[in-house]
């Protein structure tokens, strides 16, 4: 059977072989989730590397998600020129430890990138992620800046908000994508969690998506599938998101949430802010499109 990644790669290839100017057409049906099979791991602890290991182990270990020889993309939030304690970017230790777990699962290559909002160089350094990855000192793990040349226009056959948009090819074609958002307040989408984090691998004028952000995010996430979502709630930003800037808005929770179901992970994360999942329109849109399960009573906590 053709798996999802192969299908994407073939679509891209077919478009590049056919007449010049034609775009790859995506009419992906979301990966179906049998409700009883959705597992969600939530762990707390202040030792972040240990917390990451414990959380992923609860889901059955990284080898359930990453196979030997695969190329894995990690998509943390590195969007802002802010230091770790300000809770605007994913914690560097979360990113570094997940990268290590991928290597332990025999991944051939781990690529890490984000399309930032502030200057990319400043964000990579200031977030602490550059230093954490450098400390791994492993050539298989690459923290790389988005390459302007890597965007690929795609036609979304079933798109509700998006008809045609640029996506970052390395994210499309990787064998696995692990989504590593940080849980934050956001004025337009109420919260920014897993689904919103995937905005970091698309091109174009992202600001226009705010007009219909929930459907746009559902569209984007139906193209880019997160094989595993690990939400960093070691500290969350409760106001002035998504970039914060004041410690007054940061709340320490020492929590990680992980699931193969992005909607389930987001739904649980919403509860940390005192919301019910159905109060977050992005989650509702995602669930309606079949991207995952938002009814937490139907999710198996592991």
């Amino acid at each position, binding site marked *: 059977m053709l798996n999802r990644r192969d299908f994407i790669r073939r679509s891209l290839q077919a478009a590049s072989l056919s007449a010049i100017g034609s775009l790859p057409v995506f009419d992906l049906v979301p990966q179906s989730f049998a409700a009883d099979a959705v597992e969600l791991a939530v762990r707390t602890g202040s030792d972040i590397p240990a917390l990451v290991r414990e959380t992923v182990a609860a889901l059955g270990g990284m080898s359930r998600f990453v196979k030997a020889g695969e190329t894995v993309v990690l998509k943390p939030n590195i969007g802002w*020129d802010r230091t770790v304690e300000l809770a605007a970017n994913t914690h560097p230790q979360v990113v570094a430890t997940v990268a290590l777990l991928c290597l332990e699962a025999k991944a051939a290559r781990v690529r890490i990138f984000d399309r930032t*909002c*502030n*200057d*990319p*160089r*400043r964000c990579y*350094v*200031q977030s602490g992620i*550059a230093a954490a990855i450098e400390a791994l000192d492993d050539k298989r793990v690459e923290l790389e*800046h988005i*390459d302007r*040349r*890597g965007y690929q226009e795609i036609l979304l056959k079933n798109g509700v908000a998006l008809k045609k948009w640029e996506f970052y090819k390395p994210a499309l074609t990787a064998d696995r994508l692990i989504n590593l958002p940080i849980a934050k307040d*956001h*004025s*337009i989408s109420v919260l920014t969690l897993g689904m919103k984090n995937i905005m970091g691998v698309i091109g174009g*004028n*992202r*600001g*226009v998506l*705010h*007009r*219909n*952000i929930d459907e746009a995010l559902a569209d984007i996430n139906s193209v880019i599938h997160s094989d595993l979502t690990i939400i960093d709630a070691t500290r969350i930003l409760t106001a*002035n998101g*998504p*970039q*914060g*800037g*004041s410690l007054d808005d940061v709340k320490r929770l020492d929590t990680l949430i992980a699931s193969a179901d992005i909607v389930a992970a987001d739904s649980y994360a919403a509860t940390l802010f005192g919301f019910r999942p159905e109060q977050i329109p992005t989650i509702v849109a995602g669930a309606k499109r079949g991207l995952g399960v938002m009814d937490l009573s139907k999710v198996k906590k592991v």
Partner: protein
Amino acid sequence: MNAKRRIDWHRLRQATQIACLLGFLWLFLQTEYRDADQLPYPVSLLFRIDPLAAVADALAPGPFSWEVLWPALLLLGLTVLFGRFFCGWICPLGTTLDGFGKVTGRGHTAVRPAWRRFKYLLLISLVVAALFGVQQIGLFDPLSIFLRTLTLTVYPVWNLLLNKLFDVAYTVELPLINETLFLFFRDNLMAFHQPIFTLALFTLLIFVGIILLEKVERRFWCKNVCPLGALLGLCSKYALIERRPDAVCSDCQRCATECRSGVVAGTYRKQECFLCLDCAGFCPHERVTFRVSANSPPTSIDLTRRHLVGAAACGALIAPTMLISPAQAKVNPYLIRPPGAVAEEEFLRRCIRCGECMKVCIGGALHPALAEAGVSGLWTPLLVARLGYCEYNCTLCGQVCPTGAIRELKVEPKRKEVIGLAVIDRNSCLPFARNEECLVCEEHCPTPKKAIIFEQRQIPVDGEMMSFKFPQVVKNLCIGCGICETKCPLQGRSAIRVVNEGESRQQQNELTTGGYG
């Protein structure tokens, strides 16, 4: 000096020129954020050794920047002792002209020696005008011309061409041009973001014009126009340099045609000699020698009192004529200066239009002004927020400014430095004008307590009440960084624009309500 050492001098001089040029180019490439908030090298060294920058700084109100500009005074001191060696050995524009002269071909028009006077007259006019409050030295400073052409035109074009090449290499397999090469270029020889600048073509045309003057005669610019050459010349009158013979020999005359500074025609004058020492090498009779001598007699400059008075009067008239135009900071609300810029009047008197701040600006926000800052503000830096914004935690422009036009701010005060105020245009802002959600400006606003807030309101749309979030600027929190204007998702004109109201640098009376009187 024996014959063998003469040849060495020629080679040594060329090697020094090339080494200096490469050194300045290397510093130029380091004039960029490279993962450290503080630049590790003195990237604006070219202007720290520039005596004209020191003149501009000295004539501006406020204290002289000793700690930045002491190398310029050192150069002046060395020139007093040893003459205009800077022109022959160090000046990157001089080296460029020597290099391009070979390409374009050099003219041998016999330009009247009186033309040499022009550079002194120009220098005097510029200095007197600066004394009277209008500083235009940067327009003619050869080092400014060199660096600003590099910044605004040559480097962006270099990047564009390389980017196009690597674009092709991304999709098609090319021999040699692979990813490794791309990464090497990207990390060492290219800008992180493709630089784009207003005035790129205009700046280039002037540079090309100066190069084409080589078709008239060799080093036309340096001999006749360059005010830095004039200043160094004035300082060389008593230099301890002695050339023998001190005039063209009647039996040969080769110096008269081959000297790059054309100085030996008639009697030797230290003020005009670049000290390239070529004549000591090419003299067929091996007669020419240079030596350092405490008894070297002063040589005269061909300037009469009438010339001096005329040039000074010119400068004294130009200044008030330019000053009677209205203050641009008032007339043009979009004249946004970099953070740390001193008050407009002093800014214009300090800025030597070198382009260092535009080169280093991490957001590509600073652009050269054409008329936006008035007639006296050509090539001064201007923040064009639709093209790029001022990065909240960045202090690079203040670090590179050689004349204190942009003060160096630490990060904390920089974050509080107000360079303008964002103003929302409700006629085009999406929630107001089209009842569409947006708030991209609010999302990007960097102040810890956001200077752009929103209000959620119900409004009727097609007879149905719908809820929208409407952005609003909080005046006493906004610092005018312009990220809202850069990121506004509207096509073309932004629905939020930064105006220069309430800048920290302008002394104003203040009201208790937070406004300005």
